[in-house]
């Protein structure tokens, strides 16, 4: 695999009210995924400050504090974040590396320091085999939200293609796995899910059948698409507290 320059329409989460920016990144890995080209004209603004220490609190402050009675993320939210990351990994072969790389780009090094810490954070999902009995702090959750939305923006072309394939296969009445790219995503998602989730959990037993797991994978694709917008991070963050307050 070689290096190549891609032009990415990357909307960094800046302060509320400031539109997206146009950035050029260098991909170190050539994956099966093409990054999002310029699809729509956006209002330009000045680039965000590059100093990591000054952006860290600013980025996290763009997400409002909704749960005043608790300092940790509720159970359902931890599960949701891990599943969204699982869907991203199923779509992009370099997804797990990309999480750390994007975290570094956004200046979230202090929260997402290395792979082990990321693994511990992700394993706060109660459905995991090696569930870490530790809470997920709001700062860690916010960092994950920002990374997920950033990656969703970069993968928006793939997500759209997959959702279009779902629609086409459904309209024709054909199984989803028959489509090449969509079948690849679904198969990877199923294998990741079965390898990482605790099969003795009642919530995991529900997903024993491949059709049910495919349904979950498609739902996550839709959610990722809706999180890839201008206010995607705020929308995802608010949705984590639905039914918890």
């Amino acid at each position, binding site marked *: 695999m070689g290096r190549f320059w891609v032009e990415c329409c990357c909307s960094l989460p800046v302060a509320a009210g400031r539109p997206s920016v146009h950035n050029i990144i260098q991909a170190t890995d050539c994956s099966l995924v093409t990054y999002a080209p310029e699809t*729509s004209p956006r209002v330009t603004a000045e680039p965000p400050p590059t100093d990591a220490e000054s952006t860290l609190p600013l980025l996290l402050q763009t997400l409002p504090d909704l749960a005043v009675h608790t300092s940790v993320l509720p159970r359902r939210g931890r599960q949701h974040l891990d599943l969204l990351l699982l869907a991203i990994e199923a779509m992009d072969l370099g997804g797990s590396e990309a999480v750390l790389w994007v975290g570094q780009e956004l200046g979230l090094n202090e929260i997402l320091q290395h792979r082990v810490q990321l693994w511990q954070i992700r394993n706060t999902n109660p459905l995991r085999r090696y569930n870490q009995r530790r809470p997920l702090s709001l700062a860690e959750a916010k960092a994950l939200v920002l990374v997920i939305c950033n990656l969703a923006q970069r993968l928006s072309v793939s997500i759209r293609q997959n959702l279009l394939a779902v629609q086409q296969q459904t309209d024709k009445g054909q199984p989803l796995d028959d489509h090449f790219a969509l079948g690849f995503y679904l198969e990877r998602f199923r294998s990741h899910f079965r390898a990482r989730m605790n099969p003795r959990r009642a919530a995991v037993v529900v997903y024993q059948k491949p059709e049910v797991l495919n349904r979950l994978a498609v739902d996550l694709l*839709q959610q990722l698409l809706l*999180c890839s917008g201008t206010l995607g991070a*705020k929308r995802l963050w*608010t949705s984590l507290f*639905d*039914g918890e307050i």
Partner: protein
Amino acid sequence: MQFQRIYRQPNCTLVVEGLADPAASLIDTNTLSIVTHSECQILGLDPVLSGGRDFLVDLIKVVGAYSQGVISGIPRPAMQVRSPHLDLHPGEGDRHQLVCQPETTPLTQSGSSSSESGQPLRWDLSTVQLFDLMEAIDQLLADPQTLPDLQFAWTPVHRRQVPAQEPLVQRAVAPTLGATLLAIAAAGFMAMPVPQVKPPRIEDRPTTTTTPAGTSLNLITDAEVVQRLQSQTQQKLAQTWKSRPSFDTAQVYRVTIDEQGQIIGYRREEPLGGQNYEAELPLKMLLQPNAARTAKQALDLRVVFLPQGTTEVKLWTP
């Protein structure tokens, strides 16, 4: 000064036309604060939705709330995804149905529906189309130069507004079973006989006691008299016993007193065997053998002489 803002997405175009606020126009001349006309066109779907500020606010509220429901998987309450003219709810399969009720007054939207007025218009949106519509709205919300006072309410769904995941029938099984068992248990207890309440009997205690002389005397049963004699004996022993005890285990004596409180007999009960420390105790000194002949009633007390030099006086129980 009139403005037009266009937010274009692959499947949706949102157009807002308006004016700047005259009061603020001296400071900021580029902000659209008053909406004169707004249009929303979804590619491939006719007709174009249009209206004024109210239409725009309803569209933002309904689409924003519905999108939140799709992201979290928890549907929003009906009042949040419904307005007088717009309604967004899940359709068949992965579709989302947008229903628009056009206004029936002659001042309807310009260039709007070709159908008869009053008939609701329905569109089945795919998720991609919904995203493009939502993204156009989000770009409007994020634009500081268009309607800066317009904000989306970032409030999660309250716990009580979330519909229960288990069906009502399944949830009602446990309390129904509990109530049934309670009724059965209550019926069973009702069938049991009511217990008879009997007054306490004092006859359990022996009614007579034997003096050292061998005569049998009636025991004093009056509780007030017993209490008085008990405390009288305690006081007498405390005043009389001044010497330091040399024993290290409690000495228990059964002491018989008459109705005047005089000691007419005693016998050591504990410890059985061992050295007899009777000489140190005041019982011999207080003994009135003559009173045993004239006594009509007697009382047995349990007197405990403790190594600390104190005494305990209680009613004797066999």
